[in-house]
C-alpha cells in the first residue's frame, strides 16, 4: 500500500531517517498508529477493509466456539502440523504459553498479524516486530489452528508433570506397537501439538512459525510436518480427494453434516471427575505413513483395485454401483467375494469395526528423497475420534495384520493427543478447563 503514495506526498518525514529508507519509513511510521497523521489513517483504513470486505469474511473460520476449529471445518488444502516438547517445568509458564498461543491464534485466524493489525510492522522501531510478516497482504485463507495435549504432558518417566497426573484421560493411552511399525522417535509423540490448516501453505506455515517463536523458552519443536493436499473431505459439499496411490480416500468419512455421527464418534461427552475438562473435546491420532509409491506404481491396475476394493476412476466399490453406494461384502464373484475380505475398504468399513467411524483429516506429503533415489512421500494421517481405544487401535491392528495395502505402507511417525474444547469465554484460553476446573 505504501507504493501507492504519490511522490512528494505531504507526510512529514522524520528528520533522522535516511532517504534510502523512505518507503519503509513511511510504512513503519504509519504502523505506529496515529503518530504521523495522514499515513496512519490510510494504513489503518486498509487494514480494516481487508478483514471487513465481504470476500475476506468468507475466508475466516471463526475461532471461538464449543469445539476447536480445524476438525469439523471443511478440510482445507494445506497443512502444517508441529509437535512440541514443553521445556519449562513451571505450571504457570505452561498456562501463560497457552494464553499467548490463544491470543495469537485468534489474531491469525481472523486474518490479522500476531499482536493485532500492526503486529508485523508496528512496535518499537529498534525492536523486532511481533509478527514475522509473511502473511501480510494475504487473506485469512480459512486458517484454523487446533491444539492438543500428549500423554507426556501429564506424566513422563513415571512422574507427574505440572500437577496434571490426576487429569490424564484414560483414553490418552500409549499406542501399542502395530505390526510393521517403523516409528522414528524424532517424528513421534510430543507434549503439545498444533495443527494449522489453510487454503494457502504460506498461511499455515506462518501460523506454526509464529507459535514456535512465542514458545521459545517454554516449549520447543519436536517434529513438524507439511501436507500439500488434503486427502479427506469433512463436508458433503467437497469432492472426495485422492491420496498418493491415486485413489479416492475417505469416501465414507464422517462428514460435518452428519450431526448424529459427529456427536457419537468425534466429540467427548459425559466425562466426569478429573476428565471433565475433555467434554466437547476429542482425540487426535496422527500417523506419518510413508507410501512405497514406486512399487505401487508398478502394480497392475487389477491388483491396485483389488487391494483398495474400489475402482480407481470412480471410487465405486467393486461390488458395483457408484462411489457413494454401500459396498456389498457378500456379493460373490467366481472366486470369493468381489470385494476381498482383506481389501482396504473391507477392513476399514464400520461393519468390520463394531460400527465405529473416524473423522479423517489427512494430507498428502512429500519430504525430499530417501537417499536411494525415491521420493519420501505418503500420507500424513490425521483422525479425530471420541476414544482411540475403540475408534483407532482395533482397526489399525487389523489393518497392520491383514490389509493388502500393508506392503506399500510404512508408518514412520505417530502421535496421540487429547484435544480440549474450544474457547467461549471472553478471556478464556485453550486448555483452560485442564488447569482451572
Amino acid at each position, binding site marked *: 500500500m505504501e507504493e501507492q503514495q504519490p511522490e512528494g506526498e505531504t507526510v512529514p518525514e522524520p528528520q533522522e531517517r535516511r532517504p534510502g529508507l523512505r518507503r519503509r519509513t513511511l510504512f513503519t511510521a504509519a504502523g505506529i498508529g496515529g503518530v504521523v497523521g495522514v499515513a496512519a489513517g490510510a494504513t489503518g483504513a486498509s487494514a480494516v477493509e481487508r478483514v471487513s470486505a465481504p470476500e475476506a469474511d468468507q475466508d475466516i473460520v471463526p475461532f471461538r466456539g464449543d469445539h476447536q476449529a480445524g476438525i469439523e471445518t471443511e478440510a482445507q488444502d494445506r497443512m502444517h502440523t508441529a509437535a512440541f516438547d514443553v521445556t519449562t517445568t513451571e505450571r504457570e509458564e505452561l498456562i501463560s504459553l497457552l494464553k499467548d498461543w490463544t491470543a495469537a491464534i485468534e489474531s491469525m485466524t481472523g486474518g490479522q498479524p500476531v499482536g493485532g493489525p500492526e503486529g508485523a510492522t508496528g512496535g518499537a522501531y529498534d525492536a523486532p516486530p511481533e509478527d514475522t510478516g509473511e502473511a501480510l497482504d494475504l487473506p485469512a485463507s480459512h486458517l484454523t489452528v487446533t491444539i492438543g495435549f500428549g500423554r507426556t504432558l501429564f506424566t513422563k518417566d513415571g512422574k507427574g508433570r505440572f500437577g496434571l497426573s490426576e487429569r490424564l484421560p484414560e483414553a490418552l493411552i500409549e499406542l501399542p506397537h502395530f505390526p510393521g511399525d517403523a516409528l522414528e522417535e524424532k517424528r513421534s509423540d510430543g507434549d503439545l501439538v498444533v495443527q494449522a490448516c489453510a487454503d494457502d501453505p504460506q498461511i499455515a506455515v506462518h501460523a506454526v512459525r509464529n507459535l514456535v517463536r512465542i514458545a521459545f523458552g517454554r516449549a520447543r519443536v519436536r517434529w513438524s510436518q507439511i501436507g500439500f493436499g488434503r486427502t479427506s473431505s469433512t463436508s458433503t459439499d467437497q469432492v472426495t480427494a485422492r491420496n498418493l496411490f491415486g485413489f479416492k480416500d475417505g469416501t465414507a468419512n464422517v462428514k460435518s453434516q452428519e450431526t448424529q455421527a459427529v456427536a457419537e464418534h468425534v466429540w467427548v461427552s459425559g466425562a466426569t471427575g478429573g476428565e471433565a475438562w475433555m467434554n466437547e473435546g476429542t482425540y487426535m491420532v496422527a500417523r506419518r505413513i510413508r507410501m512405497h509409491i514406486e512399487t505401487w506404481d508398478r502394480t497392475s491396475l487389477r491388483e491396485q483395485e483389488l487391494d483398495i476394493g474400489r*475402482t480407481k476412476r470412480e471410487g465405486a466399490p467393486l461390488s*458395483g454401483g457408484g462411489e457413494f453406494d454401500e459396498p456389498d461384502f457378500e456379493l460373490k464373484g467366481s472366486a470369493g467375494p468381489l470385494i476381498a475380505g482383506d481389501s482396504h475398504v473391507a477392513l476399514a468399513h464400520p461393519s468390520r469395526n463394531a460400527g465405529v467411524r473416524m473423522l479423517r483429516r489427512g494430507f498428502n506429503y512429500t519430504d525430499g528423497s530417501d537417499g*536411494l533415489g525415491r521420493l519420501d512421500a505418503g500420507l500424513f494421517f490425521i483422525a479425530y475420534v471420541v476414544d482411540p481405544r475403540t475408534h483407532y487401535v482395533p482397526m489399525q491392528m487389523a489393518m497392520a495384520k491383514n490389509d493388502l495395502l500393508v506392503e506399500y505402507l510404512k508408518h514412520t511417525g505417530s502421535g496421540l493427543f487429547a484435544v480440549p474444547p474450544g474457547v467461549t469465554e471472553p478471556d478464556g484460553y485453550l486448555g483452560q478447563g485442564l488447569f482451572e476446573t
Partner: protein
Amino acid sequence: MTPNRTLPTVAALALAALALAGCTDNNATADGGDGSIAVTSTDDTCEVSTDTVPGGTLKFSVKNEGSQVTEFYLLADDGLRIVGEVENIGPGLSRDLVVVAPEGKYATACKPGMVGDGIRADFAVGPVPEGQEISADRAALQDTATTQYGAYVKDQTDQLLAGTKKFARAFADGETDQARKLYASTRMHWERIEPVAESFGDLDPILDAREADLEPGQDWTGWHRAEKDLWPPKDDYQAMSSAQRQEIADQMVDDTQELKERTLDTEFTADALANGAKELLDEVATGKVTGEEEIWSHTDLWDFQANVDGARIAYEDLKPLLDRDDAKLDASLDKNFTALQKLLDQYQRGDGFVYFDELTESQKQELASAVDALAEPLSRLTAAVVK
C-alpha cells in the same frame, strides 16, 4: 518377508489355467472409440458392437448394465475352449479383455449371474493384417512356461528343506559358526521362490517374520528369530537356551516340510509367474536395498541375489510368449537384468557377498537405481504374457 501380500498370489494360483486372460478396468467408452469392441451385458442381453474383426490383438470393453455380477468370454469354435475371459464385473462397472486371436470362428458369451452357458453369439476373426504376426498357440507356450517354472520351484523347495535340516541341526547343537555359515546360503532357496512361499499366508509369518512385523503377543519363530540369536545385539539381549534353540529349529524343519508338500499341489499360471517376478523386485526395492531384511546378520545381498534369480527364471520361462510386439520390452528386460547382475557381481566375496553394512551410501544408491530400472519394464511383463 512382507506381511499380507498373500491373497493376490493365492488367488492367481488358485484360478489356474482359467485366469490367463488380461483384463483391466480402464473405463473405456461404450462405443469403443479407441478401437476396442464394446460389449454391453445386461441381465438378459449381450450386445457386441461388431461380429467381425481382423485378427491380432483384440480388446473388448465390457460394461455391466445389469443388476447381477457378470462375466464375458471369448470361446473357440467348439464352444468349449476358453480363449479369454473377464470375470467378476460388478453391476455398473466396466472391464477390458485383451486377447490375441488368430483367424477363425469364435463365440462371444456374457454370463450374468455367473451361471449357465451364458448369452452367446457367433464371432468371426478375419486374417491378420499384413506386417503383423502372432504366435501360433499361446496356450501351449503358457503351459510350457508354467511347467518349467513348477520344476524350478520343486527343485528350490527340495534344496530349501535339505538346507534347513542342516542349518537346524547346527543351530540346535550350538554350532554357531556353522549355523552362521549356512544361514544366508540356505535362505537363498526361500528368497528365490518367496512369492510362492508367501502365497501360503500362514507359513510366511511363522518362517520369515521380522521382529518389527510381530503383533503384540505373537510368538516369534523362524529364520529371523534364529538370526538374532546368531548375531546377537550387544545390549539388552537374552541369548536363547539350547532348549529354546531346539524348539525353533524343530519348528523350522516341520514348517518347511509343510511348505514343500503344499507347493507340490500348486498349479502355476502365466500371470502368477510374471506377477511373482515383479513382486520379487518389489521385495528387493523395499526390503533388501534398504538393509531392512537382515538387520542382525547384514546378509541382505544374498537375499537380493536370490530375489533377482527367481525373477530372472520366471522371465526366461515366459520369454517365448513375448511376441514381436513386445520385442522392445524383451530387450529392455534383458539389458536391465544383465546390468543389475553385473553390479551385484562386484560385491561377491568367496561363495557369498560382502555384508550390507559394508556398502557405502553411493553403492546402495547405485544398486537401488539398477533395481528400479529393471522393476519398471518388469511391471509390464504380466500384461504382455496374458494376452
